[in-house]
């Protein structure tokens, strides 16, 4: 059934239907009698007409053309594609969580509020921060929220000069993009030979116009920046704040905390570190934690405990305001909460330890075949720079595409930008040595294929439902929706 290639619109047939509603049991009214004609649509609605079986088969067949963590190894660097425990899905689907209207009276939603309150306390402890807001919908949304907090903090002190944010050249693309949305200019600084922040570059960029520094630690090379205390001190001395991009928190849970490294604001990706599923791109959740001095700037509402009651508090005059509808991606929060309960303090620590051990194991076994630009102990991920026996023909993209033939999701490629031909591998703690060994053997085979038969890689993949796509054509002549064939 891999050959199934119909769009839902192409199996539509007039008169079919996949739904049943009860008959309308109040008096029927002609809409034209209650709404003036010029407010009604004159167009016929173009929606498919299919049966229930059609819908089930169509989307089931589509799902067969996808690859998830449940399908196999997914060593996608920076994305922490760990296993998504099923108990978490069950907990998130409890009807007295899902069937709650967000504007219901507070006394009818105490369970949900308590869960959120407890989750934020746990996340504060894990990150070493004083208070956490669960509102942001994703990592980038957390970044934006954190940067707004930084801006509000400076401006509330009457300091309006600080309009710049420093971002290392190894940073995620969302860092500079979020800073721009929060109304900042960006200063990019270079990385040193060890892949960390270049202190001279940092020093020369700091001034009374700098609002803060955004940093990922371990950074996007998977390397822990040993100078972190000095870095945060330098920024603080210059009057700036330090922001922690929590994309790589899976490396250090229970081992070290951003709050103890001098970070003032952090965001965490619950859809990475805390095992909630990526959903093919979302929904995620990106809680933001802050130090004491910044609590009053957190977005509203804040969940507070008032005696035995939990309440949503909006009375926060210095708050940056509202950053999304309602209170956070609650369904995602339930999953993360269940995950933390399952793992406990010891489990989270063990998860980070094994994520790091697994990454170092793979790094060590692959470095004879692939170029390893930073040959030192890594944390939860590491970055290779293409084939060790450099080939003029075979690119990192070809290697990634060949991996598809062997049934793997490829690592992240061409990121971070500071490594040429980057292949960024993050196994996570949920993979066994057997799984990693099998992948490593394939990577070794591919490196040999590259030498013996480069064309084999250039034309890969062969075994997938579709083969390499014409992406240029997609962008030049965008076809972004189905239009009926004439």
């Amino acid at each position, binding site marked *: 059934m891999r050959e199934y290639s119909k769009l839902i619109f192409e199996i539509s047939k007039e008169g*079919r239907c*996949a739904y049943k509603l009860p008959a309308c049991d109040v008096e029927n009214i002609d809409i034209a009698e209650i*709404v003036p004609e*010029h407010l*009604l649509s004159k167009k016929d*609605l173009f*929606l498919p007409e299919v049966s229930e079986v059609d*819908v089930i088969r169509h989307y089931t067949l589509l799902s067969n053309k996808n690859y*998830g963590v*449940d399908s196999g190894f997914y060593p996608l660097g920076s994305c922490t594609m760990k296993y998504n*425990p099923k*108990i978490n899905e069950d907990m998130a689907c*409890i009807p007295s969580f899902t*069937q*709650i209207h*967000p504007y219901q009276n507070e006394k*009818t939603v105490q*369970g*949900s509020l308590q869960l959120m309150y407890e989750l934020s306390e746990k996340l504060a*402890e*894990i990150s*070493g921060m004083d208070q956490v807001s669960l509102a942001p919908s994703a*990592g*980038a949304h957390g*970044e934006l929220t954190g940067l707004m907090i930084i801006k509000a903090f400076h401006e509330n002190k009457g300091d309006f000069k600080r309009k710049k944010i420093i971002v290392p050249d190894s940073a995620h*693309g*969302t860092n500079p*993009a979020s800073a721009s949305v*929060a109304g900042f200019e960006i200063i990019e600084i270079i990385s040193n030979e060890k892949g960390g922040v270049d202190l001279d570059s940092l020093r020369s960029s700091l001034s009374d116009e700098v609002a803060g520094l955004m940093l990922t630690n371990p950074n996007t090379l998977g390397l822990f920046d040993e100078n972190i*205390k000095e870095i945060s001190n330098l920024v603080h001395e210059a009057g700036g704040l330090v922001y922690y991009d929590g994309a790589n928190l899976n490396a250090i849970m229970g081992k*070290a*905390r951003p709050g103890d490294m001098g970070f003032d604001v952090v965001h965490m990706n619950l*859809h990475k570190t805390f095992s909630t599923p*990526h*959903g*093919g791109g*979302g*929904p995620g959740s990106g809680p933001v934690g802050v130090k004491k001095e910044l609590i009053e700037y957190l977005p509203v509402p804040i969940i507070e405990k008032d005696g035995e009651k939990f309440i949503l508090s909006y009375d926060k005059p210095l708050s940056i*305001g*509202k950053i999304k*509808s309602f209170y956070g991606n609650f*369904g*995602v929060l339930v999953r993360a909460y269940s995950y933390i*309960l399952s793992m*406990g*303090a010891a*489990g989270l620590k063990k998860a980070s330890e*094994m994520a*790091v051990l*697994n990454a170092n194991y793979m790094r*060590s076994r692959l470095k004879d075949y692939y170029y390893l630009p930073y040959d030192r102990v890594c944390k939860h991920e590491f970055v290779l720079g293409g084939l060790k026996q450099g080939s003029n023909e075979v690119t990192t993209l070809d290697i*990634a595409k060949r991996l598809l033939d062997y049934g793997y999701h490829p690592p992240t490629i061409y990121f971070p930008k500071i490594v040429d031909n980057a292949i960024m591998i993050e196994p996570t703690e*949920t993979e*066994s040595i057997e799984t990693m060994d099998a992948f490593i053997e394939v990577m070794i085979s591919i490196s040999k294929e590259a030498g013996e038969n480069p064309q084999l890689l250039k034309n890969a993949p062969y075994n997938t439902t579709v083969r*390499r*796509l*014409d*992406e240029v054509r997609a*962008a030049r002549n965008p076809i972004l*929706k189905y239009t009926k064939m004439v």
Partner: protein
Amino acid sequence: MFPYIPNTLEDEALMLKQIEAASIEELFTDIPSDIKLNRELNINPQMSEIEVQKRVKQLSSKNRSTEELVCFLGAGVYDHYIPSIIKHLVSRSEFYTSYTPYQPEISQGTLQAIFEYQTLICSLTGLDVANASMYDGSTSCAEAAFMAAEYTKRKTIIVSKSVHPQIRKVLETYMKFKGIKLILVDIKDGVTDTLKLRELADSKVAGVIVQNPNFFGIIEDMTEVEEIAHDNKALLIMSVDPISLAILKTPGEIGADIVVGEGQSLGIQMNFGGPYLGFMATTTKLMRKMPGRIVGQTVDVDGKRAFVLTLQAREQHIRREKATSNICSDQTLNAITAAIYLTTMGKQGLKEVAYQSMVKAHYAFNEIIKSEKYNVVFNKPFFKEFMIEATQSVNVINDLLLERNIIGGYDIGVDYPEYKNTLLLCVTEKRIKSEIDKLVSVLEEVK
């Protein structure tokens, strides 16, 4: 042992040997000792599945859900019917455990589902192109305002007071930090005051934001608003209820440039506020200014039809600070949910949902007004929500309703102090006559 961590002590020893390390601790020596956490995290101990279930259900049982209560609350989130097949399809792990479809050869399922979703959103709204989703209706609206500012190179946005107060609050936050001026245009008789809008609109305005049906449930006539926006070369941004589009004039017919909205109604659980679905559609002209992911159709090397993320030159991972938005993770799974919902309901079903909601809301309205205990606030055509003015505070009324297992309306006075003791009630196709009659009779009991 931890069920999600497969490697044994023996495996650990083997791996440590391979990397020539004596212990796992040795792999953490790059973390300076003064910042190491030299204690256990002060959170719960590990729990078994049975214990987790027990604990979580202890919490969920403190809630009172619409499973047991009858919901007449709306205000942007709606208790519409969700077909059973949705959960079965969306919980296919190939969908929910996959990442963003950066590797199209093994992601055609997600990519095609998004392509179909984009088509369905275009069809509903009457606009040319839609993106793969935004976080929710509010942030989608804020991003639309940014788009308008970027496209027109202007720095003022006008928003009608009849737009959902929560959307306006999110707009305030986003615009404040980006340095864009946000002007509120007043309402008259429950709809955007076009006289005042005409006074406020000038050549500095990038976009005019209106909502239909508006926050009060009223179907606004957008003819004049559209003229005013376009006379000033500003963009018309409409926030809409997607269900209403089965009946009401589409933003495309009205002449909107960008349409956004909350897609929760399209098969997504109310979930205490999220995750939801922000949808966005625009014209071909504005396509390259649109934020978020977009899926396009192309062919593979064998000429086979295939789908791929496209127009990526707009996005943060390519353009960094020059990207149209910082959005990365979006709400893809909920977009797929919406696609399945729209497919399942189909042409006839969506019309029926819209029709039944509207007719039942009018029945409720007429019955409540008949009692003469409540006043009509605005005499305007409405969709599935309406306002009534009481002689008692909304809290008193809602408490009484709750005693009878009914979730009452939204207290309009919270955001519009000029409308005291005023309830916004919502009726969807899920409500049956006897439930509405009960609402009416309890409302009549209010002293």
